[in-house]
């Protein structure tokens, strides 16, 4: 049941393409993949002059970010008489099951958002189309974007995503709790000495200052950030082996476990408990993603943001990025493709507005805009862009993390296993999964 493009569909798509181009079979590699040959074609993206179309736009913005995107979509639809965009929101975990199923049954969205680390999996499974020509038509270049993000959207030589934002990890500090602990709320700790000093001071006042989450994803994000800070990597160069059980990994996890053992964090912190405690002035520091800016604000917390403190030997922080993708819809109307390009281009140009949802725009011009510059909390975290890290662009890599790394970090943080033993065990399990994935996606 492979998704073969019929001759008719192929012609229709190419015919609709004004300046659009279709990659001729260059032979070998991904070009044998029919989805790769099927570039999106159609339209320059600068404007849309076709007949009235209705675009369905799917994403997983179910949190504080949802209303912001909805407002942008409404603004776009009211400005553009010929394009109506209907936005559909699904929780991210279900989203990555629903979109492939919808696309394969021909009912998928016309344009969608995906995280940068899921692009390879979805490209390999032919859920999304290469968008090299979208980038060309929109005259988007590496120099328009933050380079790391721009390059991370490439899988097997083709671009699959147009980056919308970067959402780095960072430090949230509760000013009220810091004050109560006798700390200067204007000076968040930025290295290991300052951080441990602050925790010690808070502990003296009976405050457990940094609740360490034990449940994924919060726990794993902190672990990965620390792993990179200690100079480690998740996988080896060709992603055949997990290397998170290196000395760097053991140091990272041990540091987290020690915070719990030494009483700087309560034991057994459950899902989101550290965030709730932060909002309720029980927890001084939360190390989590930039998207918490809006929920914390709405909860009435008096807080600030700062780059991830440097605990290890170098600066590093976990990040992810939302990307526009074009789903591989059978027999897609070329007008809709042209309209989608225009939509992507419009949102991208106006992405400073999106930053208000608690994001850093991927586009340089949006980051330089006065709109973004005025967002202090976002700007503090945007400083980290030069050293953000993403997982490697390999299909199925997310599954390896969920099945092997997440439970290991969980068990260590619940003090049920020694960090090294937990990581060693999970790394060998990951190696098997990596091998299985290679066989699966190469078959």
């Amino acid at each position: 049941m492979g998704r073969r493009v019929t001759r008719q569909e192929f012609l229709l798509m190419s015919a609709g393409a004004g300046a659009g181009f279709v990659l001729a079979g260059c032979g070998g590699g991904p070009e044998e993949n029919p989805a790769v040959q099927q570039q999106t074609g159609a339209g320059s993206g600068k404007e849309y002059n076709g007949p009235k179309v209705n675009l369905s736009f799917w994403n997983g913005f179910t949190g504080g970010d949802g209303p912001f995107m909805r407002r942008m979509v409404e603004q776009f639809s009211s400005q553009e008489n010929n394009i109506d965009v209907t936005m559909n929101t699904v929780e991210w975990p279900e989203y990555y099951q629903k979109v492939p199923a919808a696309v394969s049954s021909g009912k998928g969205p016309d344009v969608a958002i995906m995280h940068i680390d899921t692009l390879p999996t979805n490209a390999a499974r032919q859920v999304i189309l290469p968008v090299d020509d979208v980038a060309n038509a929109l005259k988007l270049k590496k120099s328009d974007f933050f380079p790391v993000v721009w390059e991370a959207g490439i899988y097997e030589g083709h671009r699959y995503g147009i980056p919308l934002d970067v959402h780095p990890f960072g430090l949230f500090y509760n000013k009220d709790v810091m004050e109560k602990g006798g700390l200067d709320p204007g000076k968040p700790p930025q290295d290991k000495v300052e951080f441990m000093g602050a925790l010690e001071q808070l502990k003296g006042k009976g405050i457990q200052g940094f609740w360490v989450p034990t449940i994924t994803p919060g726990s794993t994000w902190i672990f990965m950030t620390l792993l990179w800070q200690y100079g480690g990597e998740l996988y080896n160069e060709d992603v055949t082996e997990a290397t998170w059980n290196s000395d760097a990994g053991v140091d990272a996890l041990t540091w987290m476990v020690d915070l719990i053992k030494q009483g700087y964090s309560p034991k057994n912190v459950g899902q989101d408990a550290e965030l709730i405690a932060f909002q309720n002035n029980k927890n001084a520091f939360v190390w989590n993603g930039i998207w918490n800016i809006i929920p914390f604000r709405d909860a009435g917390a008096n807080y600030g943001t700062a780059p991830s403190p440097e605990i290890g030997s170098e600066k590093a922080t976990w990040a992810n990025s939302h990307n526009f993708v074009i789903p591989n819809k059978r027999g897609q109307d070329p007008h809709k493709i042209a309209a989608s390009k225009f939509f992507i281009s419009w949102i991208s140009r106006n992405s400073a507005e999106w930053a208000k949802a608690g994001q850093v725009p991927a586009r340089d011009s949006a980051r330089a805009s006065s709109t973004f510059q005025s967002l202090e909390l976002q700007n503090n975290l945007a400083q980290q862009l030069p050293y953000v890290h993403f997982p490697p662009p390999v299909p199925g890599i997310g599954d390896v993390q969920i099945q092997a790394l997440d439970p290991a970090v969980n068990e260590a943080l619940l003090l049920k296993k020694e960090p090294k033993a937990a990581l060693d065990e999970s790394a060998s399990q990951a190696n098997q999964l990596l091998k299985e994935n290679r066989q699966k996606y190469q078959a």
Partner: protein
Amino acid sequence: MATQNVERAEAEPSPRKGLGVGGRKPTDASLLTPYVFMAPYLVLFGIFIVFPVLYGLWISLHNWDYLLPGKPWVGLQNYTDLFTPGSVTFEPFWQSMEATGKFTLYSVPLLVIIPLLVALILNQEFLGRNFFRTMYFAPYVLGVAVIGILWRYLLDTNVGLVNYYLGQLGLPDNIPWTNELPWGWIALVGPTVWWTLGFNTVIYLAGLQDIDPALYDAAKVDGANRWRRFLHVTLPGLRPILLFVITVTILASANVFGQAYLITEGAPGDDTQVAIMYIAEVGLRNFKMGSAAAMSYVLALFLAVISVANFALFRYRED
């Protein structure tokens, strides 16, 4: 009992009559009649049960991702992996089967006994009986997502209401309900009992109301006390209901997913990751559908064996 038998005998037509009205020889068309009547069900049964079962078997013999063009035939590999220590799926699968087994073992007795007690109480005449019947049934109308998230927050170790009230009572207020064993099992079984006991209660209530009051009167005349009446009238009268309740509760418990997915999220480690949770993870999130299908058949086989044993046990008692 006697009256029921009489009624049944009257209602049942003689087998001879069934062949054709007025003793005519059956025509070809009348031979087809029963099948025509059954057709609507058989069509649905075929489409939604038989076909998926066979298709699933076919899937389980492949390395199957519905979106990848290559779905290599692997024969029984997915099954042999499940029985080969050291394979990718062996350890987590049996771990999840064990978790499901434990959950079933802990929850079924409670879900069989507590609803029976509740039904016995609610079967009495007292003021506000209907109100209490509604209240006991009420949680059952909630979805698993609602009760799951509700209890996850109530049972949170550090910010949950349950620990807060325990602390107010001077009891330990740091019990790790959702992320440590054995507390995790209480966090899964407790809410499940609260959530579903209404269903079993309603079934029991219906069964209790079906027992002929004359039998209780007769037992009273014979001098049977409350306990003996329960033992010799109520329980035997409920036997078919009990069989139903036990079978359905075992199957429902063995299919546990939402509670573990939302309340404990499999923690600590994978200890409360139940079978369906792992199968869904492998099949629907990692898209290794062949492997997930094979696991489903192994799980189904277990459940079939348990159900058959259950029926055999009750039939034996009846003889």
